[in-house]
């Protein structure tokens, strides 16, 4: 339980996240995302959420990013394409930045609202057992729905990825 | 009940004519004639069973007691003459339009409804009922002009409606004020007359009543609807307008101001005289310059009805009697002139005095009829018109010499417009339009009836005078009692 470490690791995640969204090359962005996810998992471990940290590394950094890597391999990485991507990045980032800042303002500022939690922080670690008891106890329905979601995603991905004439307009 | 029948019979006649006309178009006219004739029989029954006293007959039926409304109908000599006139003119117009082809059943029904509504005005003594019939009367007339008229008929019909509907508001407002003014809500004219109204209120109420009546009369400057309405209306419409609608205004002025507002009448009568004197000369002068024959006759109507106004506002026995006689006489002579001009129009499709002419050579009967009614228009002795004018002038001599001399001047001017109308149509050679077909039998019948009426009442007016006498007397007495 080391909040300071968690903070540092989180800061690293934030910096690398900034790099993710500003890189021209997809490969670079992917690498920086990996950094983000890993530093986040470190942050999780520091916060005592070891199951989450582990899951972050295994599933996110491992499984999900692996899928990304497969796709990224098909991307055109020629200098010309990079140049185009850079040119696109250079323009029209102001409105999104403004909107993002606008979202940030209330989220940052909004503290101490009526009824806000004033209890003292405990900072206890949560074991995987507790998590398992919760997930397969009261949250069982949620887990079932989540599994349905995954199934739907699977079938959708299968359907979309199928070769053949695209349906609908295009 | 006979009085209700007098209103209901023509009304039902109209409805049944319409129904019959759906099945067989030619049946409508027969139905209309039968119902109107039944109305005449009801009138005769009324005459037979007349009671002695001020009113020949009176009917009171509850209608809406909570709102103080009831059906009060009364008939005296004046109303009797007016109702007789309306039934006669109704029959006459139906006969005239016997062979009409354009929506004939509706035409005959409309004629019947005009008669019914004006009968209602002539008989009603419940003020709400009066206002109801007063407004109702506009509808069939509006239809007559708007459907069967010539030229710019919609505009003329709407002008007619606007003038008279706005004027009717004055009547309506005054009626409701009267109804609300008493201890209990009551619109009974007799009750109101007996109760008496406050003198100041009488003036304003009389203004409201007089507005409605004077627009219908019409007196300048409220007359602008009449020439247009007459010009665009079909012949039967013109006859009913001149013979009936104008008379409802005169009847109203004759009857109600002295009955309900004698003190107000006392105050306002001098202004009425001024207005009448102005209208007499003005109508005659404008008539002198007309080129459309119907417009010319319409303006002569304005002049003659202004004389009626003078007679009524004069408030002496002679002038009131004269006004009553002019009402009848003018109904005959103006109707006849409209009939004749309409007949000319049917033949040559123009009423322009600059284009007509030479009737005397090609259609002598036409010319003779024109001569008779032209002389009636300019108050030739021997016609009822003269009697009326002479009595009004006599009364004016009692009231104020100035008005008498103005009426005399109007007699002179009447020759100017009368000869203009007459010689432009009858004399000379036709400039454009030659009438070659003389009056047909169907046209001649009404003309002869009207001629007999004009001459008979001109020579033997006793019937009229006896009939008018009670109304005239009570008006004179009411005014006398109101004089401080």
């Amino acid at each position, binding site marked *: *339980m080391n*909040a*300071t470490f*968690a*903070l540092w690791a*989180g800061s690293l*995640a*934030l910096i690398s*996240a900034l790099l*993710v*969204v500003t*890189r021209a090359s997809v490969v670079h*962005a992917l690498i920086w*995302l990996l950094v*983000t*996810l890993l530093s986040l998992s470190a*942050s*999780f471990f520091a*916060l005592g*959420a070891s199951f*989450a940290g582990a899951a*972050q590394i295994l*599933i*996110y950094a491992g499984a*999900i990013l692996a*899928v*990304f890597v497969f*796709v*990224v391999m*098909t*991307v055109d990485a020629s200098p010309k394409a990079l140049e185009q*991507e850079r040119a*696109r*990045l250079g323009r029209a*980032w102001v409105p999104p*930045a403004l*909107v*993002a*800042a606008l*979202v*940030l303002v209330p*989220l*940052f500022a909004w503290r101490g609202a009526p009824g806000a939690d004033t*209890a003292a*922080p*405990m*900072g206890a670690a*949560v074991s995987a057992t507790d998590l398992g008891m*919760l*997930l397969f106890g009261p*949250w069982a329905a949620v887990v079932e729905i*989540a599994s349905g*979601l*995954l199934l739907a*995603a699977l079938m959708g*991905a299968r*359907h*979309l*990825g199928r070769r053949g004439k*695209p349906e609908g307009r295009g | 009940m006979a009085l209700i029948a007098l209103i209901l019979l023509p009304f039902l006649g109209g409805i049944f004519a319409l129904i019959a006309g759906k099945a067989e178009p030619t049946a409508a006219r027969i139905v209309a004639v039968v119902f109107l004739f039944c109305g005449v029989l009801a009138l005769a029954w009324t005459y037979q069973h007349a009671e002695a006293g001020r009113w020949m007959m009176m009917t009171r039926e509850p209608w809406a007691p909570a709102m103080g409304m009831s059906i009060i109908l009364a008939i005296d000599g004046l109303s009797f003459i007016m109702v007789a006139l309306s039934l006669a003119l109704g029959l006459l117009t139906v006969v005239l339009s016997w062979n009409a082809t354009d929506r004939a059943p509706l035409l005959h029904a409309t004629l019947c409804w005009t008669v019914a509504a004006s009968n209602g005005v002539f008989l009603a003594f419940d003020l709400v009922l009066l206002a109801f019939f007063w407004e109702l009367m506009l509808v069939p007339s509006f239809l007559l002009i708007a459907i069967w008229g010539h030229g710019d008929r919609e505009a003329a019909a709407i002008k007619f409606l606007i003038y008279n509907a706005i004027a009717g508001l004055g009547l309506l407002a005054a009626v409701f004020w009267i109804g609300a003014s008493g201890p209990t809500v009551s619109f009974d004219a007799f009750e109101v007359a007996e109760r008496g109204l406050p003198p100041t209120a009488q003036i304003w109420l009389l203004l409201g009543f007089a507005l409605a009546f004077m627009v219908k009369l019409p007196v300048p400057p409220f007359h602008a609807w009449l020439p247009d309405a007459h010009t665009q209306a079909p012949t039967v419409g013109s006859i009913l307008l001149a013979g009936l609608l104008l008379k409802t205004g005169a009847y109203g002025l004759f009857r109600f101001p002295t009955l309900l507002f004698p003190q107000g009448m006392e105050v306002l009568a001098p202004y009425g005289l001024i207005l009448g004197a102005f209208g007499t000369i003005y109508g005659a002068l404008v008539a002198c310059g007309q080129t459309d024959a119907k417009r010319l006759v319409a303006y002569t109507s304005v002049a003659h009805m202004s004389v009626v106004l003078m007679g009524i506002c004069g408030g002496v026995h002679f002038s009131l009697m004269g006004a009553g006689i002019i009402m009848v006489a003018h109904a005959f002579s103006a109707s006849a002139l409209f009939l004749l001009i309409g007949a000319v129009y049917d033949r040559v499709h123009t009423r322009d005095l600059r284009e007509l002419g030479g009737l005397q050579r090609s259609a002598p009967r036409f010319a003779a009829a024109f001569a008779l009614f032209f002389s009636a228009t300019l108050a030739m002795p021997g016609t009822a018109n003269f009697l009326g004018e002479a009595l009004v002038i006599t009364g004016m001599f009692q009231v104020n010499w100035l008005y008498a001399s103005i009426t005399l001047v109007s007699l002179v001017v009447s020759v100017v417009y009368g000869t203009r109308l007459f010689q432009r149509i009858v004399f000379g050679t036709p400039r454009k339009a030659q009438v070659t077909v003389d009056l047909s039998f169907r046209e001649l019948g009404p003309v002869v009836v009207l001629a007999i009426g004009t001459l008979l009442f001109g020579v033997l007016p006793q019937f009229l005078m006896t009939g008018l006498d009670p109304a005239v007397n009570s008006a004179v007495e009411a005014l006398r009692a109101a004089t401080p």
Partner: protein
Amino acid sequence: MTEDSFTALMLLSTALFVVGLFGVLARRSILIQLLSLEVALAGPSLAFITAGARHADAGGQAMFVMILILAAAEVALGLALYLRLRRTADGTDSDSLSSLRH
């Protein structure tokens, strides 16, 4: 865990989310938008974990698991769509896919 560090972590998670959001909005390359989406999802995960740690509650981690599942499903569908779209349109430019306008 102090109050300050908790607040700082929460702000951090917010910032992560907003950075991801910015990436989604600012970038035109579909793949990078998908990556930015992952970043944006990381923000809430951190917030849930932090809050779970603060209250010693397993719900935070449970929500993280849910976000994980959501991210997995989203990536699967997103990439499949990307591949599919690349057959008919320019995969590097999401702006070229504007047929919704018509």
